[in-house]
């Protein structure tokens, strides 16, 4: 079991460029979560999917951020027109069944996004 795989590990973009982050959840897990981690804000919830369907995107900035899960083996987080304040570590996590409230999350190592 390779765990949750996130690529790339590091991404540097110029201000105004687009960034796409990839996540491969653990096989058989039905829920995928995206979080943003910064020193100031800690772990901020962005969005989550269950069985590929978007369930809650209340943490997503309304502009420039979008997430998709086209199949059960990967999810993407896209940031258009990146800004310096988007610099953070973006963490993806999966769980076996998000409808079970005490189900643990398995996190990937994250993608560190640096916007210059």
């Amino acid at each position, binding site marked *: 079991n390779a*765990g949750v795989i996130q690529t790339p590990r590091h991404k540097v973009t110029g201000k105004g460029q687009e960034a796409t982050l990839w996540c491969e959840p653990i096989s058989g897990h039905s829920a995928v979560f995206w979080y943003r981690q910064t020193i100031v*804000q*800690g*772990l901020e919830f962005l969005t989550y999917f269950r069985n590929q369907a978007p369930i*809650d995107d209340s943490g997503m900035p309304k502009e420039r951020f979008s997430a998709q899960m086209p199949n059960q083996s990967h999810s993407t987080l896209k940031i258009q027109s990146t800004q310096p304040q988007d610099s953070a570590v973006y963490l993806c996590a999966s769980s076996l069944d998000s409808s079970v*409230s005490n189900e*643990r999350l398995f*996190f990937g190592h994250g993608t560190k996004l640096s916007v210059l």
Partner: protein
Amino acid sequence: GDSVTQTEGLVTLTEGLPVMLNCTYQSTYSPFLFWYVQHLNEAPKLLLKSFTDNKRPEHQGFHATLHKSSSSFHLQKSSAQLSDSALYYCALSHSNNRIFFGDGTQLVVKP
């Protein structure tokens, strides 16, 4: 709404002393509580979680007791080790909902 509060941003203590990291929560439901730990340059991982039958969860010497009366789930360990230095997140979830994390507490254990 749901929220988790960790009052200490940084806790520094000497190896061998007891550890207590505070966590309180607000929820309109009866939630499950978790502690996640993140060591430097690693992914966060589950340390322990509350049980439905009110048993006290324990792992790697850490334990936490869910007190519904005070809405708390403090993390404790009797004797800190250097390897316990890490970022600790308290979190809550309830059925069919996302997981809410606190701001995290950085624990630094010195020799």
